[in-house]
């Protein structure tokens, strides 16, 4: 096993990998940018090196700096986490070239899966089912002909894309031209590559993905699926395993196809095959993620395995310690991605200092967090603060435990989307497992009405007692005015101004 591993990442995933290292007796090397000197992953690692300014391209995305730290710290291997350099085949190659083991698939597998059109061609040959569409980037005339042939609505997608960038839904022939141009230029801006392809648009699809794992000796297994249909703007918000729509037969078929995909790419280490599932439970290959996923904990809870431990072991050349038939799924797990954003205000990002943090624990609750009380959430990186995962004997118990844990969770000083999860988990469609990728947008369009008529009075009483407990209020001559000052914050805002601003925001 490796003696020392560098983690080329930050936030909760860096903490999660550092923990795995400590559990395995591996020394961990953290890297940090200027604004991350006090980040939790730096506090928890055995070694920590500064790698540059806040801007990711000059720090977490800078291959030379990371390889330099790997050299200086005498790390033997590099774990890329997710995001940043994790799906960068050139980085994986550079690691190999400099004698560091990249903890993930080979550069060749990554390369093959990195271009959606190339992946598609390879997979078609392996007999993997696809949404009808083009197999490669096409010009506007070809797009027009193909769209006519498979029928509208269709979806335009960037070949190099991801995260919803460079995607356009086209409902009818009249919209095709301008959508094509927009998708092309957005693809160019976002990925430096304007290749665009076309697919039939599946109405109300589910997003279901299959976790696979391969060693370097040709063994590949599937570890069950994850339902990831709860998305906002094509970004996952909640994930669960198993999927409410997948039964044993469908899991086996999907798993076997996923293994076939991985084998076609000569894949090893952790990977995920994403599928679209239509209303008739047909599933179509979407893409492969050649890294550990954000949502890997739900699979860990349901399989009882530790995927990061497995990554290390497989990268160190070990064989998978089990066979397909040894995998035993049990219970149900659901993950909430806690973001620093304001669900009551258009999901505006909400960086800043966490002044108070009360975290849930107890039965069936796993929490993977990158934050702590007093920490300043920087403005430069993505807003994922923590993942709260509920496990239960069945889906209902997992939901109930999550609701309990969310009730206990309190993040003060910044806004988070914790209240959004309560809404989702209480929604009848969610509870019934009636999900598709449009579910969350529909939910958000409905008015929210959680009220207890007695509570505002309790809030008023609480505010008054807090105010009267302030040191200033107990000074001689203290009265309502002093109490108010005691309670007021550095820059008081009148109620009117607050309302005005809230309205201004709502208009956007």
């Amino acid at each position: 096993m490796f003696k020392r591993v560098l983690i080329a990442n930050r936030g909760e995933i860096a903490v999660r990998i550092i923990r795995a290292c400590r559990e395995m007796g591996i020394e961990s090397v953290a890297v940090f940018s200027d604004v991350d000197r006090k980040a939790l992953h730096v506090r928890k690692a055995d070694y920590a090196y500064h790698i540059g300014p806040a801007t990711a391209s000059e720090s977490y995305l800078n291959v030379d700096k990371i390889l330099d730290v790997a050299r200086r710290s005498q790390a033997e291997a590099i774990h890329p986490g997710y995001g940043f350099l994790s799906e960068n085949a050139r980085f994986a190659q550079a690691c190999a070239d400099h004698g560091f083991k990249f903890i993930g698939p080979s550069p060749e597998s990554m390369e093959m899966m990195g271009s959606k059109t190339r992946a598609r061609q390879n997979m078609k040959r392996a007999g993997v089912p696809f949404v009808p569409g083009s197999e490669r980037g096409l010009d506007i005339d070809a797009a027009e002909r193909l769209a006519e042939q498979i029928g509208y609505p269709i979806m335009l997608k960037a070949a190099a894309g991801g995260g919803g960038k460079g995607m356009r839904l086209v409902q009818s022939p009249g919209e095709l031209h301008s959508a094509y141009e927009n998708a092309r230029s957005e693809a160019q801006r976002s990925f430096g590559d304007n290749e665009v392809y076309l697919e039939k648009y599946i109405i109300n699809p589910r997003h279901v993905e299959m976790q696979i794992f391969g060693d370097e000796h040709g063994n590949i297994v599937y570890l069950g699926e994850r339902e990831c249909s709860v998305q906002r703007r094509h970004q996952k918000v909640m994930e669960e395993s198993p999927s409410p729509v997948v039964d044993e037969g469908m899991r086996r078929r999907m798993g076997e196809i996923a293994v076939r995909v991985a084998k076609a790419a000569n894949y090893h280490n952790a990977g995920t095959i994403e599928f679209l599932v239509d209303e008739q439970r047909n599933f179509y290959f979407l893409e492969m993620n050649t890294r550990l996923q954000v949502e890997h904990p739900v699979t860990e809870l349901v399989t009882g395995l530790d995927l990061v431990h497995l990554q290390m072991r497989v990268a160190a050349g070990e064989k998978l310690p089990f066979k397909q038939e040894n995998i035993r799924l049990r219970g149900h797990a659901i993950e909430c991605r806690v973001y620093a954003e304001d669900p009551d205000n258009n999901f505006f990002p909400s960086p800043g200092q966490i002044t108070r943090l009360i975290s849930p624990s107890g039965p069936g609750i796993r929490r993977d967090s990158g934050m702590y009380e007093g920490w300043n959430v920087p403005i430069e990186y993505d807003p994922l603060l923590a993942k709260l995962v509920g496990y239960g004997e069945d889906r209902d118990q997992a939901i109930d435990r999550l609701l309990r844990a969310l009730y206990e969770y309190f993040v003060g000083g910044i806004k988070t989307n914790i209240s959004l999860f309560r809404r989702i988990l209480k929604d009848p469609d969610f509870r019934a497992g009636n999900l598709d990728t449009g579910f969350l947008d529909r939910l958000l369009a409905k008015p929210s009405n959680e009220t207890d008529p007695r509570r505002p009075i309790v809030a008023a009483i609480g505010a008054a007692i807090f105010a009267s407990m302030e040191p200033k209020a107990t000074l001689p001559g203290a009265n309502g005015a002093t109490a108010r000052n005691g309670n007021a914050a550095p820059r008081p805002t009148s109620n009117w101004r607050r309302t005005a601003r809230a309205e201004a925001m709502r208009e956007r």
Partner: protein
Amino acid sequence: MTYDIVVDGKTHQLELTRGEKTWLCKVDGQEIEVDAALTARDVMSVLIGGKAYEIKRERSLQGELHMVIGSARYAVDVQDPRSLRTRRAVGGSEAGPQKVKAPMPGKIVRILVSERDEVKAGQGIIVMEAMKMQNEMKSPKDGRVQKILTAEGSVVNAGDTLAIIE
């Protein structure tokens, strides 16, 4: 002690008297006995007739005060009745100049208007970026850009005034 407390826009009159072990609260004329204990910083345990509430106090950087009970969150303003009228008057009205403020810390990526430009309510004024997301700050009203108080590339704090629309 007497307070006017605005909870989510509704004003409640509160009279607070400290008893031997509990507080006597007169809320909008109704008497309530309250057993309150500060357990941790900004976390108060309140018992009212056997019902237990945990109330968390949160003050944001922008000076807003919230009480969080369970998972419900209440915007609260604690006011001294005598100074209320004055404070209300300070607020200004739709007629005067209005500020476009940064709702979050972030970086100014684009300024979409120039000083003296005519703008419509809801028109984009400035684009900010934070946490890999871009957001447009819009004009609160029809009017004219009186002043722009930031520049492209600047890093701003939440609550900073970015522009004034007159």
